[in-house]
C-alpha cells in the first residue's frame, strides 16, 4: 500500500466511507470542520448522505435516525458542539443504536479558545448525558490511527450496538502525516433490528423508553453486562519500553507523542523510562496499570487538562505506587523540556530512595 500525506480530519472521513459509513450529519466547528467538509465532498459520490444540520442537537438526532434505519453513520464536532450532543448520546446509548462521534477537542470551558486541549475527557469518557450509560472511547495519536481507529469504531459500534467516540485533540485532527488505507471497502449491511420501512422490518421498534421500573432495571442490567463484555474484550493500549521501566509516563493523543520523544532522550541518558498510552479510554486499560505497578516505581500522568484521566490512573493503580501529574491547559502544550525535567526529578528521587533502602539493608 502506498502512503499519502493527509490531515487527520480528512483521514477520518475516507476511512469511515471505506468502513461502510454511508451517512454524515454535522455542524462546522474549529478544529473539526475539515471532517464535515470532507464528508460533504466524498459522501454523495460514494452513495452516502451528507447533510449540514442546523445544530449539533439536530446532528446527533439525525444519527439516531440513520442508525435506526440500519445505516453506518457519523458526526464530528468539538467541545461546545459535543456538549449539545450529550442529550442525543444518552438516547442513542439507551436505545442501543450504533454510531460514531468524532470529537476533535479544543480548549474550554465555554467558548474557551480553538487551540488543542484534553479537557473533554470527563465529558466523553464518563458520559456527559443523563442516566447510566457508557460510550466506547478511542484515542488516536497519529494520522494513521485516525484512519485505523475510525474503521475500528464502526466495527465496535455495530458489535456492541453502542455509540463510539473517537476522541482526538486538535493537533491530531489538524496535522498531516503519511497514511495508508485498505484497498477494499466494507459493504454496507443492514442489521436485522433496523427500522427501514420494509415488510421485513415492519415489526421492529426502537426506543430508549422503558416505563415500568422492573423493565428499566433489567434493561440497565443488560447494558451493564454489555459494558462488562466491552471491558473484558476491547481494552487497547500501547506500551513503549515499559518492561524494565522505573518511571512510566502516561498520556494519550498528542501528549503521547511528546512522551515518546522525552522517553527516548531519557533512556539515552540512562534513565529507565517507559510510556503507557491508553488507546481505549473507555474501557480503560486498568490491567496494564496494575501489572506495571508491580515493577515500576512511579507513574507520571501528563495531560492537557486540569487532571481528568489521572483520576482513572489513580483508581487503576489504587495506591500501589505514587501517581504524579503534570499538565498545561488553555491551548498550551507540555513541552519536551518540562516533561524531561519531571522525569529527571523523579529519577533523582528514585535514586535517593534506592540509596536509602540500601543503607537500611546495610544497617540491618
Amino acid at each position: 500500500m502506498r502512503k499519502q500525506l493527509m490531515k487527520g480530519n480528512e483521514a477520518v472521513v475516507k476511512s469511515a466511507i471505506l468502513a461502510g459509513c454511508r451517512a454524515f450529519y454535522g455542524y462546522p466547528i474549529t478544529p473539526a470542520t475539515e471532517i464535515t467538509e470532507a464528508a460533504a465532498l466524498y459522501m454523495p459520490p460514494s452513495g452516502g448522505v451528507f447533510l449540514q444540520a442546523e445544530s449539533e442537537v439536530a446532528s446527533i438526532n439525525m444519527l439516531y435516525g440513520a442508525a435506526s434505519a440500519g445505516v453506518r453513520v457519523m458526526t464530528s464536532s468539538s467541545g461546545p458542539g459535543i456538549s449539545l450532543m450529550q442529550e442525543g448520546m444518552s438516547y442513542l446509548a439507551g436505545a442501543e443504536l450504533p454510531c460514531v462521534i468524532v470529537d476533535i477537542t479544543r480548549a474550554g470551558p465555554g467558548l474557551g479558545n480553538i487551540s488543542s486541549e484534553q479537557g473533554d475527557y470527563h465529558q466523553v469518557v464518563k458520559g456527559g448525558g443523563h442516566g447510566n450509560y457508557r460510550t466506547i472511547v478511542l484515542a488516536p495519536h497519529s494520522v494513521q490511527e485516525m484512519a485505523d481507529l475510525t474503521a475500528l469504531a464502526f466495527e465496535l459500534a455495530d458489535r456492541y450496538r453502542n455509540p463510539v467516540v473517537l476522541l482526538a485533540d486538535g493537533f491530531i485532527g489538524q496535522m498531516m502525516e503519511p497514511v495508508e488505507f485498505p484497498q477494499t471497502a466494507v459493504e454496507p449491511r443492514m442489521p436485522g433490528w433496523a427500522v427501514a420501512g420494509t415488510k421485513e422490518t415492519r415489526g421492529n421498534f426502537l426506543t430508549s423508553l422503558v416505563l415500568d421500573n422492573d423493565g428499566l432495571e433489567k434493561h440497565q442490567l443488560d447494558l451493564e453486562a454489555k459494558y462488562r463484555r466491552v471491558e473484558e474484550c476491547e481494552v487497547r493500549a500501547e506500551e513503549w519500553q515499559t518492561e524494565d521501566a522505573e518511571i512510566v509516563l502516561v498520556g494519550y493523543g498528542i501528549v503521547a507523542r511528546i512522551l515518546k520523544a522525552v522517553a527516548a532522550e531519557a533512556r539515552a541518558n540512562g534513565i529507565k523510562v517507559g510510556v503507557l498510552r491508553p488507546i481505549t479510554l473507555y474501557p480503560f486499560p486498568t490491567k496494564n496499570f496494575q501489572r506495571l505497578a508491580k515493577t515500576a516505581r512511579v507513574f507520571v500522568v501528563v495531560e492537557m487538562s486540569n487532571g481528568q484521566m489521572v483520576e482513572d490512573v489513580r483508581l487503576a493503580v489504587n495506591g500501589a505506587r505514587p501517581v504524579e501529574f503534570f499538565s498545561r491547559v488553555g491551548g498550551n502544550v507540555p513541552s519536551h523540556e518540562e516533561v524531561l525535567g519531571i522525569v529527571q526529578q523523579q529519577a533523582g528521587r528514585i535514586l535517593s530512595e534506592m540509596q536509602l533502602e540500601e543503607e537500611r539493608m546495610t544497617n540491618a
Partner: protein
Amino acid sequence: MPSEMVSEYEVSHARPKAFFARFERKDELQHQTHYCPGCGHGIVHKMVARAIDELGIQDRTILISPVGCSVLAYEYFDVGNVQVAHGRAPAVATAIKRSRPESILISYQGDGDLSSIGTAEIIHAANRGENITVIFVNNGIYSMTGGQMAPTTPLLQKTATTPFGRSAQNEGYPLHMSEMLATLDAPVYIERVGLGDNKQIAQATRAVRRALDNQVRGLGFSLVEVLAPCPTIFKMNPVDAQRWVRDVLGKIFPLKVILDRTKEAQPRQLPEPAPALDRIPKILGVANEDLPEGNPAAHDEKAVMDLRVRVAGFGGQGVLLLGEVLAEAGLDAGLEVSWLPSYGPEMRSGTSNCHVRLSRHAIDSPMVMNPDVLVAMNEPSLRKFYKSVPAGGWILYNGDAFPADCEQDDIHVLACPFTRVADELGDARACNMVMLGALLEIAGVLRDVNIDAAFKRLVKSPRWMELNGRALAKGRALYIESCQEVCNAY
C-alpha cells in the same frame, strides 16, 4: 335509520389494518387506549391508520413517536416504530428518509414538542422540504406533565405555570407555527384542521390523507395541524372540551389550508444509485494505482537524518504551503514526515506557523520546539522564535537586515529581502518558495525530483508551477551566493 347509514357507521368503527389487534399495555382493558376519554389523539391516530390502509403503505411506514401524551403511539401502529427525544422527531425522520427514500415517515408531534422545544428541528426540516408528513396535534396545553402552558396556550388562560393567566407581556402570544412555516419556500402543503365537530373531523381526515399521499407521490414536506381537545386538563367533559376547541382555540388558530403547492410541486429527485463497491477507493482518491510511487533515494540506513523545521510568518504569506511542500517532498523521498500547523485565530490575521519534521526513522513528536532551520518570514516571527534555534542551527530571515539584537553565537543566518526578490521574479507571493529554495540548499536532503513531485500534487496552476520553479532556483542561488560572500570575507 337507513341501513346504509348503519353500514357506514359500522365501517368507520372497524379497526384499521395499520392498528395492532391488541393493546399490550392494557391487557385487561382491550377496549381502551391509554388516552383519556374525549382525548383528540385517539381520533387522530385513527385518521392516520385509515390513511395508511387506504394508501396501501403499511409495510413502508415508519412512525416517529414523540415525547408527550402520544409517546406511546407505537403501541397502536403496526408499522415500523421509532421513539425519539422531545422535539427531535423531524431530525430523526429526516435521516431515516434520506437513507431509506422508499419509506414513508410520519413525524407525530404535540404542541410542546413541535412549537416549543423542537422549533429549530421543524423549521429546518420544513425549509429543506423533507419528504415527510408531520402530524401536529395542538391542544393548547402541556397535558402529559399535568397542564402547564404551551406556546399555543390562549392569552389569559390559567395553567399550572400561568396561575394568573397567560399574559402577552410575560409569556408572549400564542405561537402560530403553521403560518410561520408557510413563509418558507420549500413546504408543499400545510393545513390546519380541528376536531371541534363532526364536519371538522371529516375535513381533518381528508387533510391527513392528503398529507400522506403527498409523501407517497414524492412531493415534499406536508404538515397537518390538528386542533384537539384535552378534557382532563381543561377539567371539562368531552363534549364541552370539543366545543372549546371549536369556539375558543379555533378562533385563535383559524382552520384553513395555509399553504398548498401540491399542483406545481415536482417530485423530489431520488439519490443517484450507489457506485460499485470496488470503485470506492478510487472515488476517495486512496487507490494505490492512483498514488505516486515516490522517488526514494538510496541512502545509508545507519546515517542519521532528522530535519526539524519551523516556518513562521503572517497569514497569507504561504507559511503552511511552504511546510507542506517540504513534507510532501520528504514523503516522496521515502522519508518519515510530519506537518503540524498552528491553526489558531491567527489564521485570519496576524501570525501563522507550522512544524515540519523529516526523518529516516519513525517520528515520535511532530512538535518542533528547537528547529534546525527557522524560516522567519517577518520580524515578529523572528523575534518570537529566534531563541528556540539551537547552536549550529539556521535562521532564514525575510528582511533587509538581520536585527542586531537577535544575533546569537553559533547560529547561521541568511537574511535577505525575499519578498522583494520574489516580486522581481513576478509575484511577491512566491516569497515562500524562494525561502524554501534556500532551505533545501541548506538541508541538502531532498532532490529536485522530490520537489517536482510535491509541486505536482499541491500546485494546480501552470503559471504558479513555472514561477515556483524559478523562485526555488533563486532561493538556492541566494544561499550559494551568501556562502561565497562568507568565503570571500575570509
